[in-house]
């Protein structure tokens, strides 16, 4: 131990003795300051934890983002096909209805059993 270090060591011992004789008001105020500092740290930690939750949600979402987009595209495609088919069928019925109404044969003829029998007989004979 060189002279300087020895001097420093002895000075430290004496200075440390002075710490025990600090005024009660001062030590109380230091205690209060410490508590306030720790409460600030608590706030920072809780804010970080909240940010952590957001980060977890973000991670969970972005890790499966490709799958989610694929499922959504499939759903939209299936719904689109269903609606398109329904629309086409409606259009087909519309055309048949308008053809029937615009035809020379009155719609009441289709309710006539004799007319049905004649149609069947006529189609059979024409096919032969």
């Amino acid at each position, binding site marked *: 131990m060189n002279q300087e*270090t020895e001097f420093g060591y002895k000075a430290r011992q004496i*200075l440390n003795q002075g710490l025990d004789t600090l005024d009660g008001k001062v030590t109380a105020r230091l205690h209060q300051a410490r508590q306030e500092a720790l409460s600030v740290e608590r706030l920072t930690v809780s804010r970080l934890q909240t940010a952590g939750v957001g980060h977890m949600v973000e991670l969970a979402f972005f890790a499966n983002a490709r799958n989610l987009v694929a499922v959504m595209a499939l759903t939209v495609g299936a719904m689109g096909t269903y609606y398109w088919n329904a629309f086409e069928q409606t259009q087909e019925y519309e055309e048949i209805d308008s053809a029937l109404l615009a035809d020379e044969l009155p719609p009441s003829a289709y309710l006539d059993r004799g007319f049905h029998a004649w149609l069947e007989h006529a189609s059979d004979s024409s096919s032969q």
Partner: protein
Amino acid sequence: MAGAPLSSRNELSSFLAGIERRAFKQAMFAIRNEETALDIVQDAMMRLAEKYADRPAAEWPMLFQRILQNAIRDSYRRSKVRSLWTTLLSSLSPGEDEDSDPLETIAAENESDGLATPHRQLERSQLLGVIEKEIEKLPPRQREAFLMRYWEEMDIAETAAAMGCSEGSVKTHCSRATHTMAAALRAKGIEL
């Protein structure tokens, strides 16, 4: 994840409890005003807790010292500006007198050591008073280096990082501080 912050909070609490009195004394050596010194320590503690609580505990002494010394320097600068306006008033008030004998100003308040004789207690408190006075008289950078190296037990690299200077400068500041203090004590007939 919940365990880490709790343990680090406890660690920080014990760290602050361990350094708060020395930090107050350091601020007092430089500022010589109890209220301001307490404000400085509180401010330094808050800053450490707010900004550096997540850093490894081993770095806290160096970080805290850097914050504390910056706060002391800021406060010192502000007080210098204020003193421009209050020089006359402060010179009339019975404040710190550089020519006064420190041995006369020591309060006989060291009653804690029941084993020591009153004479020994008086000697110790007188010695403490003399050393504190000599530390106050040191140039700021020498005082910082001396206190960090020997009172805070920081190594040269840590002290250099806290002071924002080279390790060589730390050694020089420490050496000068030690020699100045030793000479001043010798002049008063005190040998450590």
